[in-house]
């Protein structure tokens, strides 16, 4: 990057959510979040339009059409190649590492639970040292959690309440499809939804611990991605991984922020 750009846009096109940030020297100037829906290109374009609007508002002096039109756009996430307007694409692995470092300097391990994959990334100074990724099966992904919550007519905000349960049960199935039938069976046996959601969080944590075994977990450990806000998931992870998984404010935007950082700041 030429270093002259006032603002850089980072856009993280995930399978469930499309996240974008407008970044300048002083920090994140604007956030934007859109459900991905079935049209990745469109949601990316909406995020972009939002952020451009913000840029024009925030910096009326410099915000002549040129500046707004020429901001570097760095795309990441599984739909990065589908974002039509971009200067550059980077993988979500590098982006999350860099974004987490931006949000919490000194971070050493990033656990990213995305819509359709999860990864454990060893980081040093914002650079990836090594990583492990599971994208071959749905268990251990955000999609799995969402599916279970939908079954209980609960949304993500309710999850932490559900996860507060003292008693949780162990799910035996390691595959999301089988887990679903197992859950139906458990409901028939009279288990509560709290116990079952707790079980799902736990089984997800176990999945992640098998990934992290190959990377090595060095603190500080943070959670990024769509479930970053959930204290329940963090608790389950901390328990299973035997290391505190810390709260990363704006962790859901880590990928987008990292992409923007890679682009310019």
């Amino acid at each position, binding site marked *: 990057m030429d270093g002259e750009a006032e603002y850089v846009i980072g856009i993280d096109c995930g399978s469930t959510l499309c996240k974008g940030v407008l970044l300048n020297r002083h920090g994140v100037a604007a956030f934007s979040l859109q459900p991905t829906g079935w049209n990745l290109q469109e949601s990316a374009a909406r995020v972009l339009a939002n952020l451009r609007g913000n840029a024009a508002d925030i910096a009326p002096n410099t915000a002549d059409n040129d500046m707004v039109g020429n901001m570097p756009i760095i795309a990441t996430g*599984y739909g990065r190649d589908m974002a039509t307007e971009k200067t550059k694409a980077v*993988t*979500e692995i590098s982006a999350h590492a860099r974004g987490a470092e931006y949000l919490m300097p000194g971070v050493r391990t990033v656990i990213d639970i995305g819509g359709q994959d999860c990864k454990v990334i060893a980081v040093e100074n914002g650079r990836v040292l*090594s990583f492990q*990724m599971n994208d071959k099966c749905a268990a251990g992904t955000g999609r799995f959690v969402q599916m279970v919550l939908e079954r209980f007519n609960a949304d993500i905000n309710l999850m932490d309440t559900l996860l507060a349960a003292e008693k949780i049960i162990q799910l035996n199935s390691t595959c999301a499809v089988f887990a679903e039938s197992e859950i139906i069976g458990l409901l028939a046996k009279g288990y509560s939804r709290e116990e079952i959601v707790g079980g799902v969080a736990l089984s997800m944590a176990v999945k992640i611990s098998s990934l992290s075994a190959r990377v090595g977990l060095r603190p500080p450990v943070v959670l990024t991605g769509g479930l970053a806000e959930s204290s329940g998931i963090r608790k389950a992870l901390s328990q299973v991984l035997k290391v505190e998984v810390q709260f990363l404010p704006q962790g859901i935007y880590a990928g987008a922020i990292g992409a923007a950082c890679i682009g310019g700041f």
Partner: protein
Amino acid sequence: MIEQRELPEIFESFSDARKQGFMAMKNLKEQGKGVVGTFCTYVPVELFLAVGLVPVGLCSTSDETIGEAEKVLPRNLCPLIKASYGFAAADKCPYMYFSDLVVGETTCDGKTKMYELLGKIKDVHVMDLPHNQDRPASRAIWMEEIKRLKNRVEEKFGVTITVEKLHQAIRERNRERALLKKVYELSVMSPAPLSGLQQLQILFGAQFKFDHEKKVQELEETISRITEEYQNGRHPIPAAAKRIIVTGCPIGGVTEKFTRVIEESGAVVVAYENCTGAKQFDRQIDESADPYDALCDYYLNIGCSVMSPNPNRLELLGRLCDQFKADGVLEMVLQSCHTYAIESYTIGEFLKTRSIPFMSLETDYSSGDTEQLKTRISAFIEML
């Protein structure tokens, strides 16, 4: 992204060799030549060349017949083994079809057991490969197996393999090995004068050219043309491209996807440690020794993961990393290949001592995992 720009015309003749070879082989058959199909680098092809038989690699690097194979073989088996069997069962590979004799070897369990089934369809001779390289008993077994293969060939084709002819065949093959080594060593230059995909296509394609003199001539021409154009300032690979060495299971055909993904991510494959590359062409057979001793020592010392221990793979890989100034090593492991999958850890630890980043990836013969490979490989290259 590394553009796969045009190479001198002569290159085409290699990238297309497998297909063109079908006709060439048909003609050879019509002239009454015997054909021997092989699967593995351990098979001493000089025994066939010595008596004018045509050896051909039954590489089976496509997923076309895997469905057919799975009627008989288990699903969770290495795709190379399934495809190899499938091509015979479905009668879809002209090379398999033309092979009068198929020579297998007890490298891994999957292949060993597959040959039993293949034997019901084709005339199969299996060599008993020891899995250790430094015990005298292992060498004795391998020597005996080479002699047994000699007898089998003589019997089957009604020929006599003389020491003189064997010497001649060793010299010919050595010459070819040396040239193919020269081909891949072109990429010692920085930036590399050709992409890894092009290199692979030459190395892979050369095995489907059956006229020794012509092959030698074409290889020499290819090398001098590439060198010449490079010296004239034609540098198709950007100097900034990260230099990758590929190791692991045999690569070629459908698994070219591995190289494609690496080069689409902006890096360049400078060398292959795999069987399609250095593992096969790095060393020469001793021309001054007794030919059977020479064959025995050369072949037994191939550094494949089926050997235990397997120091030669590390030695070669380490040497390639230095010679090619590698920025990273990527390993391709075929699904369900235990020996390579397990050895992966050893490779990783070895490369750690040399501070060379390493990642191992599992794949199969389908194209379904291209995106998954892409994310991992791009992330690996971004971290270099």
